[in-house]
């Protein structure tokens, strides 16, 4: 296998992490919605924590994207 095709395969493998982060982000919002429907009065106060969890989960997916880009272009 030559280097160029190995790079492409590596970038594709690195992009799997983006899908894994999608599960994480969906989990964050899903759990929030589940508990917000049970207690709507407390939901507004937890919006900041919701976005902190979202940011933490999303960052890892973006890191996977960065790794894929670095494998492809560097």
């Amino acid at each position, binding site marked *: 296998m030559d280097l160029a095709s190995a790079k492409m395969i590596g970038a594709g493998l690195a992009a799997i992490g983006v899908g894994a982060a999608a599960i994480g982000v969906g989990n964050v919002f899903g759990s929030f919605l589940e508990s917000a429907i049970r207690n709507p009065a407390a939901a507004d106060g937890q919006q*900041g924590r919701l*976005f*902190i969890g*979202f*940011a933490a989960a*999303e*960052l890892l997916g*973006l*890191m996977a*994207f*960065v790794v894929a*880009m670095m494998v492809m*272009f560097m």
Partner: protein
Amino acid sequence: MAAETRIDPMHQFQISPLLGNLDGSPFVFTTSALWMLVILALIWLFMMGGMKRALVPGRWQVAVEGVTGFVDSMLSTSVGPEGRRFLPWVFTIFMFILTANLLGLMPFALVGVHPFTVTSQFTITGVMAIMSFSIVLITGFWRHGFHFFSLFVPHGTPFALKLLIVPIEFISFMVRPFSLATRLFVAMIAGHILVEVFANFVVQGLNAGGLVGPGISLVAFIFIIGVMALEVLVCAIQAYVFALLTSLYINDAVNLH
């Protein structure tokens, strides 16, 4: 035909000089600088139009008061009553990131202007993250002196566990500016690449002709509409997250757990 046109999604992030050349002097007026000036002018117009102090506010004044009140309440819920002292910085980055993100999405290419997303450059987001981080460090050391290092030691930890937790807390503290900057610029780059690739599908499908080509173009075009709506949401969320995380880090420095 279709095989020859190679998609180059990274081309849109290239900075080109407008005055001077890039390898000569360090002071070059680039497209990035031009778009930053446009952002500054837009924010200035927005603020000047609404800062009227009318007793019965008009629409514009309500919009400006809404944005400032939003950032103010975010700071006061996460930092407390002292959070208002940091309002200028948090409001500045919130407005700058929001305007830059939204301006990069505008379809100026229809009138021949190439839009440039300033926040898709690691230098810009990195400088903003380093400034947030230095505000945290300066505030922490100013208010608490060397007691600031107790940030790395949670209360009531057994000694054996401290040996493990302190390095982890230190690393997670030091990686903050990097994660803050990376999140913003990668989210912008990823969204623009996605739109660019699918926009290329539209053009290539029309070029291919036949029966299948225009169909693929139509599907890709509908997909782009959805992605653009998502991108507007991401623009706002990224600006909000950057400001929110900055105020949380400031809370660490002000209140020390």
